[in-house]
């Protein structure tokens, strides 16, 4: 089974030139997203997960820029496209759901106008057809009385409803990939669950893949098929959700999972990882996690580990496994 993945990112490098030197915000990150798959991208603030989403869809804020690597959509490179061709891809083939529903929708236009404009930009059809599609879309994302409410302005909707509209907007042009950047962070817990369900179902129906960017491991557990863990702009670990969550291999992931309070644990003290994620201008040599790692070895301080295949589409970037893999191959 070696189908071309829908999205392929290889050795992506994103840099920010500042007057104090160039900062590397994303340092050689590689991953694939298969057709119809939900990939979770998890990391703490400053890890760079939002930047990856922005880089893929071509919305990196200057002076940030892609300084290396490739991004391929169905085999074609999109990171080198000029502004106009990229604009056509945006919306039509890659849709985006942003975090804050309040600012994602233009407060001066009705939902109908915004949906119809998006649809007609990417699909040639009459105004009436576009409206029918829009109503059907709103209905599908769970807005009651869609035909009537489509003529309302964004501020007439509550937070959760607005986010549903944003999801509808992202899917209006039937994209192949939807990038959702913290889609539920600004919402209440009870609404969060509803939005996650909607996103999951509607993407599964249309066969769209999802790249779900969040800091909330719980959301990933419920929604994603695979998860990628980011640390200081580098990939620490990537693999099927169940494996990574229940059997984390990278010491950072283990620390992360241990520090999350759950509804069922019984320990009185949470696992805490000492220190904090390094700032972009102070990333240590070798493995970025080495100052905080409970299993650090000498090698970690000088050499940066590559991605080690662990079988079952699982990869870890850690020297602990390099040795084991070598043994497995030669032993």
């Amino acid at each position, binding site marked *: 089974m070696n189908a071309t993945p829908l999205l392929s990112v290889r050795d992506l490098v994103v840099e920010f030139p500042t007057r104090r030197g160039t900062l590397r915000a994303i340092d050689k990150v590689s991953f694939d997203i298969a057709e119809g798959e939900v990939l979770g991208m998890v990391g703490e603030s400053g890890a760079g997960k939002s930047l990856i989403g922005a880089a893929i869809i071509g919305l990196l804020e*200057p*002076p940030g820029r892609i300084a290396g690597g490739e991004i391929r959509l169905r085999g074609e490179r999109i990171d080198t496209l000029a502004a106009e061709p990229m604009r056509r891809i945006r919306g039509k083939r890659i849709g985006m759901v942003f975090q804050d529903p309040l600012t994602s929708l233009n407060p001066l236009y009705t939902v109908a106008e915004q949906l119809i404009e998006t649809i007609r930009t990417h699909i040639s059809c009459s105004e009436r057809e576009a409206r029918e599609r829009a109503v059907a879309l709103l209905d599908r994302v769970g807005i009651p009385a869609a035909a009537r409410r489509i003529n309302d302005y964004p501020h007439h909707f509550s937070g959760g409803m607005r986010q549903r509209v944003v999801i509808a907007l992202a899917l209006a042009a039937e994209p192949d990939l939807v990038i959702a950047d913290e889609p539920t962070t600004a919402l209440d817990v009870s609404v969060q669950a509803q939005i996650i369900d909607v996103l999951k179902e509607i993407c599964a129906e249309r066969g769209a893949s999802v790249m779900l960017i969040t800091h909330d491991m719980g959301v990933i557990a419920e929604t994603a098929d695979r998860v990628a863990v980011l640390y200081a702009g580098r990939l620490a670990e990537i693999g099927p959700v169940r494996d990574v969550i229940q059997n984390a291999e990278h010491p950072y992931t283990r620390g992360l999972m241990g520090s999350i309070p759950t509804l069922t644990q019984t320990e009185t003290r949470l696992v805490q990882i000492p220190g904090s994620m390094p700032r972009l201008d102070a990333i240590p040599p070798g493995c970025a996690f080495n100052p905080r790692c409970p299993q650090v070895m000498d090698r970690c301080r000088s050499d940066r580990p590559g991605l080690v295949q662990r079988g079952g589409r699982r990869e870890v970037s850690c020297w602990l496994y390099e040795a084991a893999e070598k043994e497995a191959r030669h032993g």
Partner: protein
Amino acid sequence: MSQTDQSKAPGRLARAWDSDIAYSFRHSPVAIVAGAVSVLIILAAVFAPLIAPHDPFNPATLNLMDGFTPPMEPNAFTGNVYWLGTDNQGRDVFSTILYGARISLFVGFAAVLLAMVLGIAAGLVAGYRGGWVDGLLMRVADVQLTFPSILLALLIFGIARGFIPPAYREEMAIWVLIVAIGLSDWVQYARVVRGATMVEKNKEYVQAARVIGAHPAKIVLRHILPNVLGPVLVIATIGLALAIIAEATLSFLGVGVPPTQPSLGTLIRIGQGFLFSGEWWILLFPSITLLALALSVNLLGDWLRDALNPRLR
């Protein structure tokens, strides 16, 4: 079990030199030139008694026969040479410019200071108290804004004339000038500070101070004021240029400084009368000085506003 970097913090001067503002200054040719010109004029004005070859305010040293001497040419009657010539009363234009700039700068700084103190105080009170105090202060401000500031200054001048006995009018002229310009200018400071105060008031560090029961005056002065001063600095810089021009305008109109202590505006007024009879230097040099001063301060203000703006690039 320390979580932070133990290295010694760099010295204050080093930090200041390396700061974003200093960097922006060093890389902006306009700012550097404008800064240099302003500093030059200010220093020349401050050290006027040391630099000026003559004292233009002492009528005893003036010689009417020296009048109308062109620049760098010996006088037909006395043979004296003046760098920039003399005016109709025999005053050395160069010295008069130096002393005049002194007055202009003094009045300018003092007026801005007055406007700032009034405006910041009003803005803080209006922003923090809100309610009817805010409403009242802002309506007063609105009413004042409907008058052009020069007219307002003239009005204040007229009122002052009515109050001050003639004997003191000359001495008090400068102070009245300062009050007139300052009072006509406070509103913009008040507005900016009020807006910024209303934003800061709701921030959690202010709430933290209220929780421990700190006195409202202490909260306003020690917590809020340092955080709202940023934009004030920009306005003040541009306000200085405007105050200098206002003073020149009022002096030009004849209601500013007394004619025995001419400022740049007075010189311009005098010079304007003689422009078409050929004594061009009486008008030209003071005008260039005023222009250079006002323009460089203005450009500095522009640069400061851009430098203090959070960069979105």
